[in-house]
C-alpha cells in the first residue's frame, strides 16, 4: 500500500482533504502493533516531518515536529540538564523494533508515561499546545507555549491518547523540566505481596517524595539485570531523586521507616533499572502477549493474583502498585476475561502486544460503557466526520 510521507502541514491538509477512504496514520511506526490491527490502507507517515524548531530552557518549553525521535529530544534536553519529566517509555523493542526509534508524536498520541506518572503526570500533562490537521482536512491549533493556560477547551488532553483517530499533529509544544541531579533506589528484598504493598503505601504517604515505586516478583527479578536480584527473592523498589544531600538524607529516613533487608542502587544503576521498568524490557525478548493494567494502587495485589492464576503468566508492578505489566502466554478470550474482571471495580486493561488475530478478537482497549462509547463516537465524528483517520484503531465501532 502507498506510504504518503508528509513533508509539511499544507501537504497533510491536501492528503487528508483529497483522501477518498480511510488512512492509517503513523509517526515512525514503532507502535504499529498497538491497538486494533489496521487493514492494509494508504499510510500517512509523519517520520519526515521532524526536528526541534525551538528550545528555550529558561522557559521550560520545547517546540518540535511530530516525527522527531524521543531519543533526539532526550539528548538535546540533557545538554541543559533538563528532561521530559513524564519519562516517555521506549516501547520499540517490545514490538521488535530498534531501541530509540520512536517519535514524540507517537509517544503523545499513545499517552505513554513512565514510572514517574503518579508524581509528575503523563504525556497528557506535558503537552502545552499543538497544531494539527483534523479529519476534515482543516489545520487548527489549540493550547499555547505556557503552562498556565485555560484559554478554550483543553484539546491537548484530547489529543494525548487519541491514537491518531481525531487529528494528525504537525507541531507540538512540550514542557521540559530540570532533571534530578542524583537518583537512588532502595530495593527491599524478599517482601511478600502484602508487605510489599504496605511498604509502598507507607513510602508514598511519607514526605520523602518518592518518585518511583514498583514490585517485581521473584520469577522476574533476574530479568531486571541486577546481579544481586537474581537470588530468587521479590524486589520492592523505591526511587528518590533530587540534590545529592537530599537524596542521601531521605534514603536514610526511608530505610529507617521501612526497615528489613535491602540494597541500594545509585544514579546510573537506578536510571537503568527504572528504564527497564518503564520500557517493559523484561517482556521485550519473549513472544507472550502483554497487558497493561491500571487500577487503584491497593487493587494491585488482586491483579497479581489473577495473573498468577493464568498458567505461564507473569506480572510486575509500577506506579506504586497501581500499574501492572503482565505477560500472558495465550491471550485468549478466557485470560482476557479474567484480567478484565479484575478491573471491573475500577481501572482499565489494555492488550498492548499480541498477534494481529488476537487483537482483532479481543478488544485491545478497555471496552467503554455504552454512554461513554456513544459520547466518544460523537467526538470522533466532530473531528473526523468522514472516518478518514485510523478508523477502528481504538474500538471497532468508534475509531
Amino acid at each position, binding site marked *: 500500500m502507498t506510504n504518503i510521507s508528509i513533508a509539511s502541514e499544507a501537504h497533510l491538509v491536501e492528503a487528508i482533504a483529497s483522501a477518498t477512504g480511510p488512512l492509517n496514520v503513523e509517526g515512525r511506526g514503532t507502535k504499529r502493533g498497538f491497538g486494533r490491527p489496521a487493514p492494509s490502507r494508504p499510510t500517512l507517515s509523519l517520520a519526515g516531518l521532524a526536528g526541534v524548531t525551538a528550545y*528555550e530552557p529558561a*522557559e521550560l518549553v520545547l*517546540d518540535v515536529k511530530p516525527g522527531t525521535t524521543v531519543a533526539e529530544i532526550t539528548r538535546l534536553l540533557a545538554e541543559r540538564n533538563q528532561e521530559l519529566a513524564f519519562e516517555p517509555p521506549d516501547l520499540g523493542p517490545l514490538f521488535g523494533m530498534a531501541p530509540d526509534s520512536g517519535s514524540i508524536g507517537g509517544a503523545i498520541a499513545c*499517552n505513554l*508515561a513512565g514510572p514517574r506518572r*503518579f508524581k509528575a*503526570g503523563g504525556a497528557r*500533562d506535558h503537552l502545552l*499546545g499543538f497544531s494539527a490537521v483534523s479529519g476534515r*482536512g*482543516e489545520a*487548527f*491549533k*489549540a493550547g*499555547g*507555549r*505556557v*503552562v*498556565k*493556560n*485555560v*484559554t*478554550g*477547551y*483543553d*484539546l491537548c*488532553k*484530547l489529543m494525548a*491518547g487519541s491514537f491518531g483517530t481525531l487529528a494528525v499533529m504537525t*507541531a507540538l509544544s512540550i514542557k521540559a523540566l*530540570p*532533571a534530578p541531579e542524583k537518583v537512588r533506589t532502595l530495593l527491599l528484598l524478599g517482601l511478600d505481596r502484602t508487605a510489599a504493598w504496605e511498604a509502598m503505601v507507607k513510602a*508514598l*504517604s511519607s*514526605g520523602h517524595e518518592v518518585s518511583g515505586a514498583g514490585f517485581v516478583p521473584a520469577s522476574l527479578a533476574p530479568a531486571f539485570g541486577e546481579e544481586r536480584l537474581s537470588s530468587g527473592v521479590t524486589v520492592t523498589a523505591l526511587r528518590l531523586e*533530587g*540534590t545529592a*544531600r*537530599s537524596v542521601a*538524607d531521605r534514603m536514610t*529516613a526511608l530505610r529507617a521507616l521501612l526497615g528489613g533487608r535491602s540494597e541500594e542502587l545509585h544514579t546510573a544503576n537506578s536510571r537503568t533499572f527504572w528504564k527497564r521498568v518503564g520500557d517493559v524490557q523484561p517482556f521485550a525478548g519473549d513472544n507472550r502477549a502483554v497487558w497493561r493494567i*491500571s487500577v*487503584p*494502587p491497593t487493587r494491585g495485589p488482586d491483579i497479581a493474583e489473577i495473573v498468577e492464576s493464568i498458567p505461564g503468566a507473569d506480572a510486575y508492578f509500577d506506579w506504586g502498585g497501581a500499574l501492572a505489566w503482565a505477560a500472558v502466554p495465550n491471550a485468549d478470550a478466557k485470560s482476557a476475561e479474567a484480567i478484565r474482571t479484575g478491573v471491573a471495580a*475500577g*481501572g*482499565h486493561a489494555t492488550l498492548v502486544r499480541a498477534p494481529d488475530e488476537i487483537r482483532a478478537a479481543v478488544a485491545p*482497549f*478497555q471496552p*467503554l*460503557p455504552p*454512554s*461513554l462509547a456513544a*459520547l*466518544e463516537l*460523537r467526538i470522533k465524528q*466532530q*473531528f473526523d*466526520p468522514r472516518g478518514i483517520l485510523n478508523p477502528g484503531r*481504538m474500538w471497532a465501532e468508534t475509531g
Partner: protein
Amino acid sequence: MTLCMPAADPAVMVRRASIAEALRGLVPPANVITEEETLRAYDSDGLTAYRQPPMIVVLPETTAQVSAILKYCAREGIKVVPRGSGTGLSGGALPLADGITLGLGKFKRILEIDYPNRCIRAQPGVTNLALTQAVQHAGFYYAPDPSSQIACSIGGNVAENSGGVHCLKYGVTSNNILGLEAVLIDGTVVTIGGKHLDAGGYDLLGVMTGSEGLLAVITEVTVRILPKPTAAKALLLGFPSNEAAGICVSAVIAGGIIPAGMEMMDRPAIHAVENFVHAGYPLDVEAILIVELDGPPSEVEELIARVAALAREAGACYCRISANEAERLAFWSGRKNAFPAAGRISPDYYCMDGTIPRGALAKVLARIREMETRFGLSVANVFHAGDGNLHPLILYDANKPGELARAEAFGAEILKLCVEVGGVLTGEHGVGVEKRDLMPAMFNDIDLAQQQRLKCAFDPEGLLNPGKVFPTLHRCAELGRMHVHGGKTAFAGLPRF
C-alpha cells in the same frame, strides 16, 4: 456595560411559572427559587460588573435530580447555567434572563477519604479548603490552592481548571484529579476515571476540566491528595527594578529549581498590601519576590541558599529568609490579601489574568506602565511569576463616568499584549464572558470552530451555558457543514508554534 448575550427567548420567559412548577416536581419545592429578591443574590459571579438575575434558580440535592432537571430542560429547550460558589472572575456563572441557574450548593458532602489510595471522593459543592481540612490531621493536603479557597467549590475548580500559588510545582486542577461523575444535557450520567490513573479511552477527564460548564454538570469529583512536605521555607526578596526581579525568576528556573511557589508584586501592590496587613515588606524597592521551597529539610536549606545567591546576582537589594513558620505565613499573608488590599486603595479594581513567557516579564510590565498614562488609570501588579501568570489589578472608580469602560479597554489591551509576546489570554480565571470577544486574538475561525464542534458532541442544541467562551454562536448543523480552507488568522505575523 455593553455585553452582547444570546437574545433571551420570550417564548421561554412567559412559561416561567409553569417551568418552576415542573421543577418543583423534580426537587424539593423549597429548592426552586423564583422570588426576585432571592434571585438577585445569584445575579453575578465574582466579576460583578456584569449582572443579570436568572429566570429561576434550582438547587438539586442528588445526581438523579440533576439528571431529571437536565433531561427536562433538554426536552423543553431551556438554557442551563451551572453554578458553584459564584467566585469565578470571568462571568462563567453569569445567569441568563431566559435560563435556569443550576446551583450545586447543596452538594456539600465529602463521600470518601481513601488514604491508602491517596484520594478523596467529594461532591462538587465542597469547598477547596474543606478538602485539605478533611485530611490535614493525617498529614495530607489537596495541592491546588486558589486564593479564593475558603469559598470556591471543587466543582467550580474543575470547571475553571483553577490554579493557585503552589501550582508551579504541583500542577493545576487537571493534574490533580482522578475521576468525575457528570451529567450530560440529555440527563445521561457518566463516570470517568476513578481512583486509577488515565481513565482509558479519550481523555474526557482532561477535556471536561476547564470546560467552564459548557459540556456537562459535574456531580462528583475524585481528587488525589499528597503527603505534606516535611519542611517549607520562604524567601522575601526585594529588587531595585522589575527587570532585576524578572531576571531572578528566569535564573531560578534556568538553574534547575522549581520552587513550590514564586510570586511577584510591584511597587504599587507592595504599598497597598503593606498598609493593609503589615506583612513586613520592604517599601524602598520596586518589586518583591516571595519564593517558597518545600520538601525534605536538607533540600530546602540547600535550595534556599542557591536561590538567595541567584537573587544577589540578579541585583536583589533585600533578602530575608523565613526563620520560622509564623514568619513564612507572614510573607504569604501579604500576597494572599493583595486583592482586598487593592480594594482598600481604590473604590473598584479589575483583576486581569494573562500568562506570558517568564522572560517577557519586565518588558510587559514596562508596556503596562506606558498604558497607564494612555488610559489615565493605575495598575498594581501581583502575579504567579514562576509560571508567568499575571494578575494586573486595574484601579478605577465605577461611579466616575467612563472609568469602567476605560478599565475594560485597558484590560483588553493587556491581554492582547500577553498574546503578542507569546502568551495566552487567561491563565486560570477562564474565558467566560469577559474574554470571550478576545478569543480571535489567539485563535482563528477554524480553531474556534473545532472547539465548538467538541461542544456539539456533548450538547448539540447548545443549552449548557450558552454565550460563554465563544465569540460567535454557531448551530451544530452549521458547524458540521462549515469548511474553512486556510481561514484567516488574527495575527498573521505570529508563528503557529
